């Protein structure tokens, strides 16, 4: 399980995170929502220390993440996958190589990695594009490669930072479908998704965190939050959801 306690972060004396605290149980899917610049990415990046928080505590399956030394941290990251808003694919590598990449420093033999890559690519329905280069893929395909690359390490924490934000709206769905699928197939993995897709959140989230100005203004099960929001922000999301439904 994941336990985040009073996480803080400042940039140049400007406080971006003002004490983020939440728990996530194994197999849970957490959705973080909030206006732009409220600190969602910072929060999610702090979890694998792509961004170094200033204070607080992160416990992942009993490991105090912030107390790890570099080596231990790198080891830890081998089981934490990150899906970037802008895909962050390696342009000079093929789809297959991109997917294999996270495992090349593992003890696995090449063939095993190839097999696994094949599996995850099939999972995101891109097996036949494995020899293509990222430049030749559509945004949705790129992000599915990003997801495959995340999945290949069989992460016990999967972090997705606005995975569909950079996509053409008509491509959003193919990615969300893949994500929805993967949140359902694994019961030990904690998935944390930053997204603005309210409907999607309602569908997949076990826990929704509403972030505003570096603080969690409301957290709870989607049904609760979207039916009886406590915060102003919650109100706004409810209105948004109602709008879609109408």
């Amino acid at each position: 399980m994941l336990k985040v306690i009073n996480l803080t972060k400042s940039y140049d004396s400007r406080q971006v995170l003002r004490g983020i605290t939440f728990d996530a149980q194994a197999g849970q899917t957490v959705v973080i929502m909030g206006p732009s610049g409220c600190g969602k990415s910072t929060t999610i990046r702090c979890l694998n220390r792509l961004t170094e928080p200033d204070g607080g505590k992160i416990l992942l399956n009993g490991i105090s993440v912030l107390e790890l030394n570099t080596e231990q941290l790198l080891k830890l990251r081998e089981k934490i996958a990150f899906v970037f808003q802008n895909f962050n694919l390696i342009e000079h590598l093929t789809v297959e190589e991109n997917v294999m990449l996270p495992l090349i420093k593992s003890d696995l033999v090449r063939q095993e990695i190839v097999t696994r890559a094949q599996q995850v690519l099939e999972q995101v329905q891109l097996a036949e594009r494995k020899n293509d280069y990222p430049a030749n893929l559509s945004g949705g395909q790129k992000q599915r490669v990003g997801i495959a690359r995340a999945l290949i390490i069989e992460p016990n924490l999967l972090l997705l930072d606005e995975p569909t934000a950079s996509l053409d709206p008509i491509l959003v769905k193919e990615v969300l479908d893949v994500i929805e699928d993967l949140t359902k197939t694994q019961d030990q993995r904690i998935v944390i998704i930053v997204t603005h897709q309210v409907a999607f959140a309602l569908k997949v989230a076990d826990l929704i965190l509403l972030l505003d100005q570096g603080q969690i203004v409301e957290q709870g099960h989607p049904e609760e939050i979207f039916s009886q929001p406590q915060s102003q922000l919650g109100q706004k999301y409810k209105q948004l959801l109602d709008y879609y439904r109408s």
Partner: protein
Amino acid sequence: MLLFKSDFIKDVVILLLVTIILGTLLSLVIGTISDYYFGDAVDSLIGDYENNDLLLIIDEREKEETVEKIKEVLQTKLPGAKLSTGINLAGKSNLFISVGKKYKRRAVFLNLEDYFNDIKGITTTSLMTEPRLTINGLKNKASQLLEDKIADLDHVAFTFPDGDSLEVIIDEAQFTAQVKEKINTLLNDYQMLGIRFPIKEEVDNLVQLGSKLEKVLKDDYGLAVKNITELNSSELGSLAKTMTEMKSFLSSYASTIKIKVFTGQKIEVGDKLIIPAEDKKKIDLRVSNVNDMIATAVITTGDSSAAVGDLVYNSDSTTAVGKVEINNPRQKLDYLVSELKKLVPQLGSIFNDADSILANLEELFATLQLLKGTTTEIETLNQKLAGYTANIEQLDGREIKANLDSLEHRLEQLVVIITRLEFMRDLILDLRVELTQLESRINAAQAELRVGSNYYNNLQQLAENIAQLKIKVVDNTQEIIDQINRYNPLLKEIKSWQKNVQDFNAVIDKLIKESPQEFAKRLTAVSNKDLITRLQQVRQPASEEKLAAVKEQLVKLRAIDFAGITAQLEYIEQSLPKLKDEEITASIDLLDHYLAGRAIPGAEISLLLPAQNVDLKVIKEEIKTMIPQQISFYDSPVGIIVPNLRNQIYQILSEVKIVLTVVTALLCTSLSLLFDHGLIITSLQELNTEKIFYSNPAFYYSLTMAVITLSSICYLTGIESPYLPWWSSILVGVGLGLIIFKEAAVINDFAKAEFKAGEAFGFNYAQIMRQIIIPAAKPGLLKILNQRQTYF
């Protein structure tokens, strides 16, 4: 630093090593290629560098003979020396001599060129030994003082003086610059103070005077002064002297323009004036001197011979400012020369006349001897006649008759002799007059030519000789003439005596028969005792020695080359009038320009002084108090290292080599920094959140890599030159590092997103660089080296 947290430092070290090795190799290869390429070209032109010691240029026609002789010299003096032949050009052959290593020492080189002095076919010998520095302008004593110090410098093989210069042979070319610098430092310890006397002023005991100054400056000022006065003036000095002479020569031929300025007009030095000239042209004047209402000017355009009228105008020809008086010495000279030209051929004949006069004088001397004999004889006769009057009774008529005949004959001879003496006296007097006239004509000619020209000198010599001849002729003939003159009044008496004797002789027969008393009385009249006494008084033999002196002078005169003088006069006549005033003025201006500020050497004292802590002003004042003459000072360095062509070319070549090597080293370093380290630097910059440069690891990385790479390559290639001391590569490295630090990101695009992805995978810096960043980078050494590490 991120770098050290992973083993990427290994990659960096390998990259560095490979870069340094490749850079060094490349630099060396390029240096060698340049050496080979340029060196070859130059060697074929000027002989093998560092191999030859002497260049002999010989006449190609006598090549075989000369080479044979050279070989002989080499065999006896420098066994083992190598002789090689260079190109033949314009009838000359170049021979190169390379002496063995054991002969490379002072003693040998001091005489090296002298060995070949006696070989006729050699036109030029010149020292070729390289690497070598030549210090010029060293006074002998300064050279002696400095030579040991220079010889003791590191990398100096040996030194030797060669005329005005000191040759310094250096161990190896690479040390040339270093040695040069050290010699300069040595030379800069001293300065030379020259004390010059006015030209043409003869100063005795220059050296002693210098020593006196030395002593005073030492004792009173505690200065380490050294008197290095030399007696012979330098070549430059004689050049300046010649130029000064030329100037005075030209000045004496320039037309002098005297202007009587009209009242109310004003003329200043430098003013431009005009004299109208023939064909509506004008003569331009430049006023050179103004004294009250009299100005002098020189002609800047035109020639005085073309002047029209005697008025001088201001520069726009509107106002007459004065009356002009032109004195054109060339016109005068032209006249004079033509006069002299007429005179000189006559001189020869005059001396030929003198020659015959000499013969006449000799004859005169013989005549005087004769006169002496004659007079003695007449005296004897006279005594005899006088004796007859005493013993009249014992008269023997026939004996008397014989004696009278003899006397008559003698008297006749005496008259002839004295008449001849008179003629000769006139001849001698004529010669004296002629010599006097000649002397004054030559003196007059000379007065017009106050110049130190050859022509003038000849004329001077001629005048002196003629004057001397005149003196000798006058001195040595005066006595003779006096003597002749004393005979002169006697001549009449002698003639009348002769008449008496003739008459008496005619009547003697009759007389003897007449009364003996009458006879005795007549006889007394014939024996003229008084006249004999007077004859005896004038009879003083002329000294032969005096004639010898005159003769000697004549011989001297005959030695004068009259044909030569005539030719010279003709030459002057032809050349001088062709020089226009404007040309003379321009030439004088030019000479003035060259001579300006140049101390014209007269006699000169040279003092060697320390360069530092010397108040020259004070010393000069002190010296002025010690020397009465109008002296001038100049201070100069003790000696100057002169560039030597071959040395220079090789210096340039070695610099070309160094430059090429350095450029290659710089290029390698820059390329490596830009494309290899640049990527790393960019990554460090991108990942660094610090905005201030000095807390940016990329900054230190850039500097370190640049300095290590460049200075290592420089060190390993052994680049050493005055332009690149060891620390300069560090400085340049730092500069390069700074540039790269600033510009690396421009050249290298660094995919931050990909790097972030790598970080998310749990890759360390090394893994990210090796697997993600470097494979995507531009081609470079780092990429090549990285290939063995990439997974894909």
